[in-house]
């Protein structure tokens, strides 16, 4: 049962070879068995999942199957789900039960998906390790050879990525503000795509940095990710930044191949101190694409080096404003005070964790009178230059291929003392958010200690089809079949 990919499970359900109940029950069982160790879910919803599976079986019996009928998914706990607690990984939202369903999850429900529960994440999606969650860290299902020390799954969508990698879900929703889909996908040896900004509605997704946040799927295969994105995406009048552009058949694009495509290799992504294994994997990936008929072109994205610095101005600035609504007045956790200011201070002091507070303070600072021009305004100008870099190279190439992360997964607690080192995780992913482009991460090999390493495919705005085509070609060539230590269906 756990060997089936999402596409295979869908076909088996439609052929009535398996029932949705069986499939969901297997995953519910996997969550019961593995969640105590992995902590991928904050709120599993087994009863709701089994009810939804029964409804899926009825729909299948009537021949009314949607694209995802009976497919059990994990939902990142940043998506508001009607009647199901939504915490954003924060204590401040611990009692919050939304009376509405986010557009992306509503689209998945429309297509018949079964929700297994709410996946763990860094608090308010701020983090690259899942160590900032108020609900405990997520443990990466992978371990180094001969070393049982727990590793981080990456973040912020660490729960989603770990759940998919450990076979605790067939796929999952995730969000990506600076790499929060691609980095955990790379750390957990699975596929994740951040689509073009505006492709998926942000309505009902707890906001971190509005101009960067974008929802996307994590899944085991490129095709599975394409199927999920096809359901999640689409224009939504409730999100003013949603793009009124038709959703193409992403899954079909996976079969296109790369013959005749021009693949750019940005020289600025070759960083000092990058692991030689990552460099080797990158070269290997390019060779696979050349073999499959693509042309490899060296390109330059000169403003790449400013990406992280710019990101850590823009994202906290927006976050400092977006998180102002968590004040204890209307919903969520409240810590009383003798007056309004004390109520705010106590609620926010108790409700937010250290990383969230750090970013609120950075964001407040860079927007302050006298600093705005030097930080926020300057950052917006640099952001425009980063976008221009990409626009320029995409006149010559169809897609870019880079490493997904500068390292493989690291140990829990390894980098907690220095936030800057932690922020470096996103060096390859952040520019893609700054430019609003689609970016896909997929596993392409293992490092010497047996941990997965990922490559990233970056595409033109709203050209996810080419991204999927390149990703699928790399996937076929890589033949990545390694499995994590912790996973459902593994021999005990």
């Amino acid at each position, binding site marked *: 049962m756990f060997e089936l990919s999402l596409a295979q499970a869908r076909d088996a359900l439609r052929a009535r070879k398996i029932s949705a109940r069986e499939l969901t029950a297997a995953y519910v069982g996997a969550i019961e068995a593995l969640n105590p160790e992995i902590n991928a879910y904050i709120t599993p919803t087994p009863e709701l999942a089994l009810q939804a599976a029964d409804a899926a079986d009825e729909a299948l019996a009537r021949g009314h199957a949607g694209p995802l009928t009976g497919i059990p998914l994990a939902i990142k706990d940043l998506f508001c789900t009607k009647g199901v607690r939504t915490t954003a990984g924060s204590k401040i939202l611990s009692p919050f039960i939304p009376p509405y369903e986010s557009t992306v999850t509503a689209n998945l429900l429309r297509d018949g998906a079964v929700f297994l529960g709410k996946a763990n994440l860094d608090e308010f999606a701020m983090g690259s390790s899942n160590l900032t969650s108020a609900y405990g860290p997520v443990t990466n299902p992978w371990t180094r050879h001969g070393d049982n020390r727990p590793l981080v799954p990456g973040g912020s969508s660490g729960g989603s990525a770990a759940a998919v990698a450990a076979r605790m879900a067939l796929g999952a929703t995730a969000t990506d503000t600076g790499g929060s889909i691609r980095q955990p996908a790379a750390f957990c040896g699975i596929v994740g795509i951040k689509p073009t900004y505006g492709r998926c509605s942000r309505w009902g997704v*707890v906001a971190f940095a509005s101009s960067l946040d974008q929802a996307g799927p994590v899944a085991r295969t490129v095709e599975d990710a394409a199927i999920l994105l096809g359901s999640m995406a689409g224009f939504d009048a409730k999100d003013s930044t949603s793009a009124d552009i038709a959703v193409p058949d992403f899954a079909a694009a996976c079969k296109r191949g790369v013959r005749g495509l021009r693949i750019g290799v940005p020289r600025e992504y070759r960083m000092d101190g990058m692991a030689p294994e990552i460099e080797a994997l990158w070269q290997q990936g390019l060779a696979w694409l050349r073999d499959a008929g693509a042309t490899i072109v060296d390109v330059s994205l000169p403003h790449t080096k400013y990406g992280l610095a710019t990101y850590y101005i823009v994202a906290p600035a927006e976050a400092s404003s977006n998180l*102002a609504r968590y004040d204890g*007045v209307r919903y969520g956790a409240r810590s009383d005070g003798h007056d309004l200011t004390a109520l705010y201070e106590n609620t926010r002091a108790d409700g937010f964790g250290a990383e969230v507070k750090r970013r609120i303070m950075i964001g407040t600072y860079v927007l302050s009178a006298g600093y705005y021009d030097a930080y926020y305004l300057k950052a917006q100008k640099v952001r425009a230059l980063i976008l221009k870099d990409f626009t320029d190279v995409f006149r010559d190439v169809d897609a870019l291929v880079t490493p997904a992360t500068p390292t493989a997964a690291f140990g829990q607690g390894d980098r907690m003392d220095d936030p800057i080192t932690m922020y470096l995780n996103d060096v390859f992913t952040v520019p893609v958010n700054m430019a609003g482009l689609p970016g896909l991460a997929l596993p392409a090999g293992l490092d010497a200690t047996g941990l997965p390493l990922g490559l990233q495919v970056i595409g033109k705005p709203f050209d996810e089809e080419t991204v999927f085509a390149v990703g699928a070609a790399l996937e076929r060539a890589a033949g990545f079949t390694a499995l994590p230590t912790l996973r459902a269906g593994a021999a005990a």
Partner: protein
Amino acid sequence: MSYTLEGSTGTWEIVCGLEVHAQVISKSKLFSGASAEYGAEPNTQVSFVDAAMPGMLPVINRECVAQAVRTGLGLDAKINLWSRFDRKNYFYADLPQGYQISQFAHPIVGEGIVDVTLSDGSTKSIGVTRLHLEQDAGKSLHDQDPQRSFIDLNRSGVALMEIVSEPDIRSPEEAGAYLTKLRQILRYLGTCDGNMDEGSMRADVNVSVRKHGEAFRTRCEVKNVNSIRFVMLAVEAEAKRQIGVWEDGGEVVQETRLFDPTKNETRSMRSKEDAHDYRYFPDPDLLPLVLDADWVQSLKAHLPELPDAKTARFVSDYGLSAYDARILVMEQATADFFEAVAKGRDPKLAANWMMGDFFAALNRTGTTIETTPVSAAFLGELIDLITDKTINGRIAKEVFEAMVETGQAPAAIVAEKGLRQVTDTGAIDAAVDAVLAANTDKIAAYKAGQEKLFGFFVGQVMKAMAGKGNPALVNEALKQKLA
């Protein structure tokens, strides 16, 4: 003569600018579908967006944008086809998002003008700096419970236009005239109801004082003044306070103040040091607001006739004095009423009736042009009865009072009460003869030169005829018989 205040060190001039918050007339709020209607039960018109629930996003309401553009056009202002919404960040319990969505750097409407007429008949142009769209906050209710404050979010997210004037205002009268005129224009446009007592129009008053010929001195802002009269009082009170400070050797500090109408004074609310740092930045949830020039043109083509144009037309088409025209144009309903009465009739007679007996009756009975039982059609009919000599002017006043009381048509009242004017010369002659026969002494006096007595005879005849005699015929008969 320009307005000045006398201090111990000489003559001072007032410099004043107004920031008016005008609630936009629209069915729903600026960024949500919740109703924007005033007066509903607390917290019954609150969408998830208005309550700033997690993940909720603003979507601009096209009608609110149209209203702002109409207002800009009505103020003869530049319409900015590209504008942008910014977030103004501050914490308050009735501000659910923790920021107000406003337009800081790029307002939808640029410079415009408001022409006002002052009591001495002079006119003055007051510049409008800008108009921008923004969200209103909710309401904090501090008087419902001894321990707690209550929050009503019905108003949260309702569209406001903030209309900022240039510091062109030089007297309390000009401040009042500007606000009155602005409110009149908004009401004509149908973009704001201008009801200051319901808070749908509020003014922040910026005041400084200076000696003649000086540059501007430090100003203070008097917040949230809620009537035109209070604005005028606040301008004067704050100016006098500042003159006192300067003349005592002190320095006016820039601060936000409140006006206390019961004490007729302003008092400090917060100083510049306590001022919020609003950390404005472009709202990333919204795209820039880009207007289509053709759309703006079509809004312009459908604007109603505005007060100044209507006043000019009333003068040129109806031959009214500028003063009368301004009074009749003060409110759209009055102007419409007048035009209905004047249509096909003597416009001056129509104007006199409206500004005389009709307005007096409204005042006396506490009714308005919308609620009075006297319709424009009935008032016109009454004028027709005078013009065709069915009734005379004196009887007309009696008929009008009956119309006010009963709401009946004037012809019906005339018929019912038998008030038709007597033009039968036989009846008039008989009445004249009877009056003269009873007053032979006065005839002698009249003939001896006391010509004033003619009026006495007219009065006596009319009295004998219960007021219904045709005045011209009565005069004629009397003159003949007294000759």
